[in-house]
């Protein structure tokens, strides 16, 4: 809890096996070969003064404050850039060195405002610290001389300021932008005394390429780059390590606090998923937690036409329970259910599914992974035996060829995107499979070797074509297949995929990708020492989403790219706890640990522990719930942390289903779109207000720790527990650690997990068992998780989507996300992140725009078979002719008014990525948008007290 600063060793750690012995200030030191003198000294507690060095970036040797003397060497080398050597004798402190350092500091301070007492960095300034460390007592230079003290402060970024008058031009920010983030937005402009940090072409930060990741702010040793929250509120006094609640990277952060107020979120250097890096969301966009839109009192109403009534927690819970029981008495046990969310903790999700299975007495529980990565769960379970990615993020640093399919890591998973770019700058090859030109295709110092710009909906044809090349051009890793895979299934698959109909030349008319490019990309991937596949929702959100996941798994097995570092099949999970919510048994057919409800032994285990009999049949999935609601057989729904009325496809159908229900209970931070159809509102808690764990895309279970009181009095797990008790199924947990203990007791892959161990290790990657007590960074090292230990090949015939372009609907709409906004935007829309993205736009290729007489920023109607909405046009060559693209972060955009109810054959994951549309210039919002606006405004009026 203390505000002890994280130790800065000055230069990055070196992972070398060869150790070197040396002497520093008379002390013997042993360190890995290649370590800097500075770091070696710091490792034994000798902190050499420094300014331009920090251990998150490579040494630079510019400030000359870290000079040392080396016996037998000439001059005074910079300790940050001097590697240790066997037998080296180093002196870090003597009069000569002290004089040099004092002289250097004197020069720095001669051009620095002496406003320490009123400076935002007072007490947290390395320049100030170094002035003290070198014993600076006077500055002999004339303060009236030439200086930078009147430089103009750039306050354009909503989260931090740039004050050049305080800049010492150490280049830490420039190097952080290059090395850590990989954006290269900053440079040093000018030479000598005129040198200055320049965003892009001497532009304000907001007009530059800066992505506001905060790496420069983190690296700055002075107040030059400073969080506005620190300027406004002062420096924090204590810190709590917790985990970000945005994307599936699951970055570890220090919530730096003043009492119960979060002053800033600082990426944790020890975080194993992010290694001290962050993005604009996790680093800065936490203000939603205390936004004025938060609802902190429970509310009920009989009808969605009624005003909300604020009631006590007891009244709200009892009303909710009585309504659910009433519905069950009238319409049967299976007439109610619940939906949990990937925004919830593991413990909350576990409790919701327990409430539904044990308290409601049915299996009608589902989670938002239904609409994103459910095909991942299915496809990888079938082929590998476990519903998870195979690697840790660090594995990418050993990949030689990286294939990114249907993912946009720099926007969707930005911290991992930066790590991937780092590896690509080191020389790894890149294959991008995407209909759209994502940033990775060409970004500073990174260029894709192949961009297979396929047509939406042709994924399976493309992966089959790649596999065809592997099989027919003798690129199969026969030894791996023979020893690790089910050979019978492989032989069947080999015959299937070798057929000419899968050849790149035969599928070119389907994919739109030149056969030669597919052949070359296939050879590149299959010939790599380590080939790694990363994929996202561009794979899963298709009618053949599961087939494509299976196709990827087949390809990885056939080429032997599994079971070690640098390879693997890596689903990039959208939300923070997609992996965890699935692990926790929130699908209607599976208990925690992906065990089917029909499995007698598993069911009996839960029955004995939970003290009830459980249904052996799968329950309703989310879209089935909507259909059943419209049919009148599903009438009560408990929704925790999910906004189905915005995020789910064919939204008019969803709204109809919600209107058809007799009791919708929403537990959330805000009156989200779903809550506008609700009868009970239970105010939830943000990630800052509760304890628990999140599991990220690499199966890493990380701590979520309460840093401020729950604004509505209860953590979400407590609310679920109260509802369960009111339903007549008793729950008596005192802390989420007790819930995790139960999960570990009942789930083999979590058997070694405990809060004590998470605190001790920082995080744990499951499986964590007696055999793997500290977790499992790489899956399937010796055998797959299937019963026979062998990887299973499955046949993946391409089946064209039912969503076809016609004269009436000649374009294909595909959807995605943008860096600054998150999912339905409920959190990020309530932050300054709107400065980057204030509305959803429709990207359209110049040819298609010209055909329709469209200009940039024109209002355009987008009409599909499901509905119509209106957005502004953004003319862009990122999309190919015939394809349009939008994001879905704003409810009024109505992106899901247009998407259809087509879905993945195996899991019903919606086909968000393929909707046939027509686009035309319009002058007013669509009918749906006008109706939505009126409905939404009325619901906000009903929120106000009568």
């Amino acid at each position: 809890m203390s505000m002890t600063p994280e130790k800065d060793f000055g230069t990055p750690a070196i992972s070398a096996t060869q150790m070197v012995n040396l002497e520093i200030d008379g002390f013997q030191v042993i360190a890995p070969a290649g370590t800097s003198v500075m770091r070696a000294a710091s490792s034994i507690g000798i902190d050499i003064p420094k300014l331009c060095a920090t251990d998150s970036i490579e040494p630079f040797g510019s400030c000359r404050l870290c000079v040392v003397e080396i016996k037998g060497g000439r001059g005074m080398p910079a300790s940050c850039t001097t590697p240790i050597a066997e037998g080296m004798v180093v002196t870090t402190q003597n009069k000569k060195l002290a004089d040099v350092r004092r002289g250097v500091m004197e020069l720095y301070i001669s051009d620095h405002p002496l406003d320490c007492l009123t400076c935002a960095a007072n007490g947290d300034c390395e320049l100030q610290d170094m002035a003290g460390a070198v014993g600076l007592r006077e500055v002999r230079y004339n303060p009236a001389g030439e200086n930078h003290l009147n430089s103009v402060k750039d306050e354009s970024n909503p989260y931090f300021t740039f004050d050049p008058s305080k800049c010492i031009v150490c280049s830490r920010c420039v190097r952080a932008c290059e090395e850590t983030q990989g954006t290269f937005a900053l440079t040093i402009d000018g030479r000598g005394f005129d040198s200055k940090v320049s965003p892009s072409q001497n532009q304000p930060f907001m007009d530059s390429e800066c992505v506001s990741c905060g790496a420069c702010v983190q690296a700055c040793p002075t107040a030059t780059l400073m969080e506005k929250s620190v300027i406004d509120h002062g420096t924090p006094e204590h810190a709590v390590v917790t985990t970000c609640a945005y994307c599936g990277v699951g970055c570890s952060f220090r919530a730096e606090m003043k009492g119960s107020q979060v002053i800033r979120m600082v990426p944790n250097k020890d975080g194993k998923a992010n290694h001290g890096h962050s993005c604009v969301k996790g680093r800065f966009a936490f203000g939603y937690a205390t936004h004025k839109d938060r609802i902190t009192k429970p509310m009920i109403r009989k009808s969605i036409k009624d005003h909300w009534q604020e009631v006590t927690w007891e009244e709200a819970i009892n009303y909710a329970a009585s309504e659910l029981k009433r519905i069950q008495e009238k319409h049967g046990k299976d007439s109610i259910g619940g939906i949990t969310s990937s925004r919830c903790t593991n413990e909350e999700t576990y409790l919701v599914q327990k409430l539904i299975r044990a308290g409601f007495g049915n299996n009608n529980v589902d989670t938002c992974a239904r609409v994103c990565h459910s095909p991942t769960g299915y496809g990888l379970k079938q082929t590998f035996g476990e519903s998870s990615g195979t690697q840790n993020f660090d594995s990418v640093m050993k990949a030689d060829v990286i294939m990114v399919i249907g993912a946009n890591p720099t926007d969707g998973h930005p911290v991992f995107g930066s790590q991937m770019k780092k590896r690509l700058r080191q020389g790894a090859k890149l294959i991008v499979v995407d209909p759209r030109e994502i940033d990775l295709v060409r970004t500073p110092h990174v260029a894709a070797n192949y961009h297979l710009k396929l047509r939406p909906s042709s994924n399976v044809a493309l992966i089959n074509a790649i596999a065809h090349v592997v099989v027919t051009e003798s690129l199969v890793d026969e030894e791996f297949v023979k020893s690790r895979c089910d050979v019978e299934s492989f032989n069947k698959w080999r015959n299937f995929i070798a057929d000419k109909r899968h050849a790149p030349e035969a599928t070119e008319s389907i994919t739109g990708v030149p056969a030669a490019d597919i052949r070359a990309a296939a050879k590149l991937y299959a010939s790599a020492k380590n080939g790694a596949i990363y994929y996202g929702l561009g794979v899963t959100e298709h009618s053949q989403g599961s087939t494509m996941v299976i196709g990827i798994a087949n390809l990885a097995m056939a080429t032997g790219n599994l079971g070690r570092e640098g390879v693997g099949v890596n689903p990039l999970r959208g939300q923070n706890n997609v992996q965890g919510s699935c692990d926790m048994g929130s699908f209607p057919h599976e208990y925690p640990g992906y065990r089917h409800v029909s499995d007698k032994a598993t069911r009996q285990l839960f029955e004995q522990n939970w003290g009830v009999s459980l249904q052996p049949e799968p329950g309703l999935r989310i879209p089935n719930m909507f259909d059943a609601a419209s049919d009148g057989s599903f009438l009560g729904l408990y929704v925790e942390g999910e906004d189905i009325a915005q995020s789910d496809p064919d939204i008019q159908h969803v709204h109809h289903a919600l209107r058809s229900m007799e009791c919708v209970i929403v537990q959330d931070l805000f009156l989200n779109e779903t809550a506008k159809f609700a009868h009970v509102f239970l105010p939830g808690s943000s990630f800052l207000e509760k304890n628990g764990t999140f599991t990220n895309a690499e199966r890493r279970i990380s701590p979520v720790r309460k840093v401020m009181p729950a604004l509505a009095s209860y953590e979400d797990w407590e609310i679920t527990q109260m509802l369960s008790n009111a339903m007549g199924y008793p729950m008596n947990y005192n802390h989420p650690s007790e819930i995790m203990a139960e999960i570990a007791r009942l789930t083999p892959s979590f058997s070694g997990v405990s809060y004590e161990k998470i605190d001790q290790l920082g995080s744990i990657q499951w499986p964590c068992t007696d055999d793997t007590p500290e977790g499992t960074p790489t899956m399937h090292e010796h055998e797959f998780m299937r019963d026979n230990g062998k990887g299973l090949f499955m046949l993946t015939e391409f089946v064209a989507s039912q969503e076809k372009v016609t004269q009436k609907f000649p374009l294909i709409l595909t959807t995605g996300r943008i860096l600054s906004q998150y999912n339905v935007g409920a959190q990020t829309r309530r932050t300054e992140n709107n400065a980057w993205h204030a509305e959803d736009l429709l990207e359209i290729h110049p040819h298609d725009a010209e055909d329709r007489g469209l200009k940039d920023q024109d209002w355009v109607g987008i009409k599909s078979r499901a509905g119509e909405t209106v957005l502004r046009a953004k003319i862009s060559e990122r999309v190919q002719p015939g394809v349009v693209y939008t994001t879905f972060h704003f409810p009024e955009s109505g992106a899901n008014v247009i998407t259809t109810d087509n879905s993945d054959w195996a899991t019903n994951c919606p086909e968000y990525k393929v909707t046939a549309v027509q686009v035309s210039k319009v002058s007013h919002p669509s009918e749906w948008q006008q109706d939505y606006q009126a409905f939404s405004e009325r619901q906000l009026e009903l929120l106000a007290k009568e």
Partner: protein
Amino acid sequence: MHIEKLLSMANDIANFFNAESDKDIAAEGVKKHILRSWDPRMRKAIIQHYTAANGEGLSPLAGNAIKKLSEMKDDN
């Protein structure tokens, strides 16, 4: 449940398993998938439709799978 939706879902599942050349194995795959992922009321509805409408709207493989499903005894 909307029977058209269920028929479409069953046909989609059959499209995947249709890659299997042994159509009896394929039908078993479709049946098992539906059994393991569909709520009983959905299965009941499609079996009723299959019986009443002689499988109308179902692909041959999907129809064969639903037939197998209808012949199953509850072993839970």
